[in-house]
């Protein structure tokens, strides 16, 4: 016990209250006679009410001047006054307190801070001895000792057990009181202790310093209340189950804050129940244990003459709210060994026996607690740590939660997550950081140099300050809230209550708000500083105050982030941060947070390497560093792109200026075809040399593909838009190539003397997916070359010239340039789909096509024409070609034998075209339910119905599919199945190229590849198997639909 608190300074309150506002001496002592100034100076807001109350008969014997001096110490004088008057009405003897400066200060602080506890005293005036006779009261309400945090057992258990007439000296006491009487007695005893605690808390000169003790004491008090509830519950069980009840023991494990002895004034108490039994019948044991556990909650919470305390929440138990309320130790251990999710182990981090049979509780802890620290060896640890980290970041993103002290950005939760994260990462190798309590953990992490000394201090101080605010806010109504009050008056009161008497601290609402805001900002910065900054510590020159982690500890953190090769990552970090250049110094600032962003992608190691390369090729250009420094959105997007796509990383390395788009969404919009063509024309005009012009054209194509890919990776484009953008880029390039080829053969248009050299006009018609503008990255250009000899030209010479031009176009697009276009995937022109295939002439005249189709064409060749789209060449020829193609492809139902022929070809293609050994279920293009199934079905229906239904006349598969549904030719649900399968297969194909830089038509089997592609397709991390399963299911369904409509099964 210690002498009552800040007595020495109390007399000062006579002349001036602690707000520094002088109370005029010699004011009229008569009730109601106080001047406005005096009342305002005391801190009242409702002056009329204050006057009335001061005049009330209960205060007759009190010196009003002294009283005002006392009330000036109350954080909320209005509230303190009315509670005082009501209290004196119920307990007139309490008036004596007002003559004692120490005790009157305590009274003012209590009534002015907690309406709920004031009401308690008014409701239960017996307990006013806590104020009137502190020495006497101390015997029945223990005082916070210096041992505070470390005390394992406290007299609280004995006191609360005594309240329900249970014998505290036995390990499993049985209460004498029962029913609502017991509930009321227990709660009154609890609130008596709570009031005693609040009195000490509120009068301590250093409330932040005492906060850990208060929290520990609150946890013990909660444990004691549960113990007393259990004693009553046990009495019930004995009555209901007879001697069997004595054969069943229960232990209560505190989780969360209660387990860690860091509880706040009012909060759900998270528990887990465990039982043991000497009975043979496990079923009956479980029934009794469940009754015991349920009884606790009833006596603590359910309706009784004294209000309930708080919820006893057992939902963290195995299997959550569906699971059994209590289990045996073995059953718990079995669950955690076999079924538990990683986060459940994290929840166990704070588990501690708080009530019930101590040996049983210890047995539980011995069996379960070690599992927390081996959980890092379990699968999914990294991803679950990442999930935790994301939760921290997500919190930071919520700007609207401005008043949240706990969950808001820079709130308590941020501190707790950061600390737990470090405990889990380093606790595997370092036993001394395996502690439950947040503040102890901060100290342990500091002692082992996982956190710098200064950071640890700031972190702990911020945590204590936030907890203090939380305590004071909850104390007012004993309500579970974490919201900063809105009204200025309430903030003013909070500022006063959260300050010790005579303690400097925020003295008014504005000052409090300012300190709170600064603390939140500090907490936000500290997360980054504490977790990420030290990753640089083995290499970069950090300031002396910053912690220097060992390479092992850095490795642990990098692995926990998902870096597979921490040693390699360290080398890159070193290269990026060593030196005195502006770049190195800026990267020292940026890299910590970028390491986190890179770790969000599927390949953090690759991403870091790519960033190093990019930085080395760009680092000296001021805009690059400027962009990273000034636009964190751009830097984050860059990290995302680099760690999820080697395709983009490669291109970016050679076209580094594209990094500038990252910060500007407008620049990531696909460039329209016309704009590209205009730029290409300008280039051709400036570069009369064909090779150089072509190089420029190919650079433009490369740039536009990169733009599309970055926009795609940033989620700015949908699948259709990507297909269109890529097709447009190819079209612009091929159109450019055609012009360059013509210029090379015939001379520059302006310089052409006559047109004698030109015998024919050439047209490129895109086929297949190019025709439908639905290509992916790295697609070839399937074409037919169509030409029309100029009037009077020799047909044979014109044909030769057309073929020559066609060859030129292909060659211009692919042949090596000087200097080379780095990382380019040249556009390969593929004319193999032309009539007669490779044996046929490369180009044909339009007439020849018409002739061919009239006389020879197979149905599949008509079908191929469905996606023919004129992309480059003479506009008039394009118009005529399209008109002719329409007349062929939209000619109407080709008849049953043609349809049968299409079906037969498809069936043959299915068995023959599939590469040897490929699994048909995983082949994106030719596999079951893959792209080609959907396309063949759509095209067949187009052939049959496009003559009468104009909406079917499109080269795009998805538009055609949509039209088929609208026209009622396909049931909507079947259309949806096909749509989803086609989209998913297309998306996966893109994903494969973007992730690996290679083209492949097979769904990968390697997990890392699948994982990356799953993320590309919009899955959450850790869903590789989910994508695989979804793809197989989607395509199986698509195949069913396909077979039904195509083969008519």
């Amino acid at each position, binding site marked *: 016990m210690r002498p009552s608190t800040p007595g020495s300074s109390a007399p000062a309150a006579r002349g001036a209250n602690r707000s520094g506002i002088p109370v005029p001496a010699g004011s009229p002592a008569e009730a109601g006679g106080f001047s406005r100034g005096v009342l305002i100076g005391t801190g009242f807001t409702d002056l009329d009410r204050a006057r009335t109350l001061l005049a009330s008969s209960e205060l007759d014997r009190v010196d009003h001047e002294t009283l005002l001096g006392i009330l000036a110490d109350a954080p909320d004088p209005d509230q303190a006054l009315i509670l005082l008057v009501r209290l004196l009405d119920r307990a007139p003897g309490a008036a004596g307190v007002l003559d004692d400066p120490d005790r009157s200060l305590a009274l003012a602080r209590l009534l002015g801070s907690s309406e709920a506890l004031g009401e308690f005293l008014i409701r239960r005036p017996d307990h006013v001895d806590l104020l009137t006779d502190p020495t006497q009261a101390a015997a029945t309400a223990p005082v916070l000792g210096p041992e505070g945090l470390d005390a394992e057992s406290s007299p609280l258990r004995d006191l609360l057990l005594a309240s329900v007439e249970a014998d505290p000296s036995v390990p499993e006491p049985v209460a004498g009181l029962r029913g609502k009487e017991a509930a009321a007695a227990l709660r009154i005893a609890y609130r008596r202790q709570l009031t005693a605690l609040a009195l000490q808390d509120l009068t301590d000169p250093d409330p932040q310093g005492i906060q850990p003790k208060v929290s520990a004491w609150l946890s013990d008090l909660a444990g004691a209340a549960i113990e007393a509830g259990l004693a009553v519950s046990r009495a019930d069980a004995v009555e209901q189950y007879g001697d069997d009840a004595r054969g069943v023991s229960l232990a209560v494990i505190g989780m969360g804050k209660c387990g860690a002895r860091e509880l706040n004034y009012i909060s759900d108490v998270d528990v887990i129940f465990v039982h043991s039994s000497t009975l043979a019948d496990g*079923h009956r044991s479980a029934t009794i244990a469940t009754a015991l556990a349920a009884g606790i909650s009833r006596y603590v919470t359910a309706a009784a003459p004294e209000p309930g305390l708080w919820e006893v929440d057992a939902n963290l138990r195995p*299997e959550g709210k569906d699971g059994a309320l209590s289990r045996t130790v073995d059953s718990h251990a079995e*669950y955690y060994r076999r079924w538990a999710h990683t986060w459940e182990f994290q929840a166990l981090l704070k588990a501690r026996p708080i009530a019930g049979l101590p040996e049983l509780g210890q047995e539980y802890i011995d069996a379960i607690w070690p599992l927390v620290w081996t959980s890092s060896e379990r699968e999914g640890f990294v991803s679950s740590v990442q999930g935790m980290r994301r939760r921290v970041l997500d919190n930071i993103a919520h700007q609207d939660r401005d008043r949240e002290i706990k969950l808001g950005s820079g709130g308590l939760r941020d501190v707790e997550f950061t600390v737990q994260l470090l405990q889990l990462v380093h606790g595997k190798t370092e036993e001394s950081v395996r502690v439950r309590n947040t503040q102890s953990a901060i100290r342990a992490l500091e002692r082992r140099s996982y956190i710098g000394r200064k950071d640890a201090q700031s972190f702990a101080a911020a945590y204590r300050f936030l907890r203090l605010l939380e305590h004071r806010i909850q104390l007012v109504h004993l309500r579970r809230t974490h919201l900063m009050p809105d009204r200025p008056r309430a903030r003013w009161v909070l500022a006063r209550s959260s300050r010790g008497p005579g303690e400097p601290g925020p003295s008014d609402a504005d000052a409090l708000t300012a300190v709170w805001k600064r603390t939140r900002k500090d907490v936000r910065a500290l997360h980054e500083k504490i977790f990420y900054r030290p990753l640089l510590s083995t290499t970069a020159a950090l300031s002396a105050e910053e912690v220097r982690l060992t390479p092992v500890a850095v490795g642990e953190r990098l692995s926990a982030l998902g870096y597979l090769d921490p040693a390699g990552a360290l080398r890159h970090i070193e290269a990026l941060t060593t030196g005195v250049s502006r770049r190195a110094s800026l990267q020292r600032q940026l890299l910590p947070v970028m390491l986190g962003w890179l770790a969000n992608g599927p390949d953090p190691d690759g991403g870091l390497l790519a960033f190093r390369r990019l930085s080395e090729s760009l680092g000296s250009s001021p805009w690059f560093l400027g962009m990273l420094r000034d636009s964190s959105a751009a830097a984050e997007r860059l990290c995302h792109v680099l760690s999820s796509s080697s395709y983009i990383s490669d291109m970016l390395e050679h076209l580094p200026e594209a990094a500038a788009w990252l910060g500007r969404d407008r620049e990531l919009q696909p460039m329209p075809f016309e704009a590209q063509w205009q730029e290409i024309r300008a280039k051709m005009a400036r570069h009369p040399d064909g090779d150089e012009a072509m190089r420029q054209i190919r650079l433009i194509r490369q740039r536009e593909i990169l733009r599309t890919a970055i926009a795609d990776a940033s989620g700015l484009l949908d699948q259709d838009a990507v297909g269109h953008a890529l097709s447009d880029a190819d079209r612009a390039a091929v159109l450019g190539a055609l012009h360059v080829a013509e210029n090379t053969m015939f001379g520059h248009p302006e310089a052409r003397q006559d047109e004698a050299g030109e015998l024919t006009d050439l047209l490129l018609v895109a086929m297949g997916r190019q025709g439908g503008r639905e290509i992916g990255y790295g697609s070839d250009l399937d074409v037919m070359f169509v030409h029309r000899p100029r009037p009077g030209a020799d047909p044979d010479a014109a044909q030769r010239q057309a073929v020559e031009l066609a060859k030129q176009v292909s060659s211009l697009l692919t042949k090596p340039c000087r200097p080379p276009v780095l990382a380019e995937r040249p556009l390969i022109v593929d004319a193999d789909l032309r009539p007669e295939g490779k044996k046929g002439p490369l180009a044909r005249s339009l007439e020849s096509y018409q002739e061919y189709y009239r006389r020879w064409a197979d149905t599949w060749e008509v079908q191929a024409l469905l996606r023919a789209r004129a992309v480059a060449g003479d506009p008039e020829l394009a118009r005529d070609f399209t008109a002719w193609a329409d007349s062929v492809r939209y000619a109407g139902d080709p008849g049953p034998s043609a349809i049968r022929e299409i079906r037969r070809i498809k069936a043959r293609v299915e068995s023959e075209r599939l590469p040897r050994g490929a*699994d048909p*279920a995983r082949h994106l293009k030719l596999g079951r339910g893959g792209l080609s199934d959907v396309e063949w079905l759509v095209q067949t229906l187009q052939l049959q119905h496009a003559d009468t239904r104009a909406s079917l006349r499109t080269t795009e598969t998805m538009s055609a599919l949509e039209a088929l549904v609208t026209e009622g030719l396909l049931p909507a649900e079947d259309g949806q199945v096909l749509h989803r399968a086609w989209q998913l297969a297309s998306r996966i194909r893109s994903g494969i190229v973007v992730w690996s830089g290679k083209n492949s038509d097979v769904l990968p*089997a390697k*997990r890392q590849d699948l994982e990356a592609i799953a993320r590309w397709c919009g899955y959450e991390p850790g869903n590789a*198997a989910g994508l*695989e399963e979804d793809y197989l299911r989607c395509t199986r369904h698509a195949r069913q639909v396909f077979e039904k409509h195509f083969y008519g099964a």
Partner: protein
Amino acid sequence: MDRQQEFVLRTIEDRDVRFVRLWFTDVTGTLKSVALAPAEVEGAFAEGLGFDGSSIDGYTRIFESDMLLQPDPSTFQILPWRGEEEPTSRMFCDVLTPDGEPSAADPRNVLRRQLSRAADMGFTFYTHPEIEFYLLASKEPGPDGQPVPVDQAGYFDHEPGGVATDFRRHAVNMLEAIGISVEFSHHESGPGQNEIDLRYADALQTADNIMTFRTVIKEVAQLQGNYATFMPKPFGDHAGSGMHTHFSLFEGDSNAFFEPGAEFHLSTTARRFIAGLLHHSVEITAITHQFVNSYKRLWGGGEAPAYVSWGHNNRSALVRVPLYKPDKAGSARVEYRGIDASANPYLTYAVLLAAGLKGIEEEYELPEAAAEDVNALTAMERRALGHDPLPGTLHDALRIMEESEFVAGVLGEQVFENYLRNKRQEWDEYRIKVTPYELQRYLGIL
């Protein structure tokens, strides 16, 4: 390294174990085994053991590259029939992809997935199988082309000094020695036919136990110079071999099927579970009866219910609710009688559990119980009462399963596809065979 793994390594050293067999199963439930030198075990725990998946049924064509076997240390056992000379042990394995994730093609993983779904709903799933098999004189048929049983005894017969009695004693001892508790063993109705009931255990352990059981039974028979078979129907004239299994769901330590005072003491959960079993019984028949031969038993009468039905202590019903023993609330259970002795226990229990859980989740209504002998009803009566028949051949069963989203969801797309492929192939091979029946019936007259 966890404690279980340390225990295994210590035992290997203490008992001077010479070989460690790693066991796993293919999709049809055939046991596969790889022998490992003791020195390799620690490495296998840490990194798994690589093997070529492409040569195993159901793993074929999925992954060209190697797969990994991850031994489950909790299944470590010394194999008793190997004697003390060169002690040999075994562990069951989970099959992993080269990246260390559970392989979607591993039947054990299919069951694990359903069990963890049950755990998410708060349930533990216990199973108790009654396994029948025939003890034959040898693997070779007799002169009449029929298998030769070791005796001519019948149901519950005790044959003094009989081969089967000795055999059961040996087998039960062996099973106990390997940690499999036997509840019950007796002679069954067919000549040479025996039944041994295993004590209830959670479903994964039961499935492992069944795989072990089959091996033990075959080994013991061989030691005696006989041959044991789990073929569903080796004799046209005698009963086939089934694997009726009792199921119960526990919530923590209490039986979720039990409700005092309710009809048959069946809780709502139990009723919905049964409804789930019945509702999906047709589409899962290709799993519970996986061979061409299975259907000879299924449609051969006797103890093989072939109609969708349930009843209280009704042996003709597909799902039987056994008589309740008043003192044993924990023993409330339901018996699914539509499984034959050759089923893949992992897949079978996975689909049955999933069916039951679906019944619970979607609150299926339980149809009325069948009070009479379902087999004795006329076809029209059964139709009127809603007792649909199970499929009549493997082919029919596969056609139904192909359309089942439910089965695809439980097995996962990969096992679903592989299983169907494997079974279609079996059917295709079967239907071009000319059987003795055909020769006997047609050769003389046509």
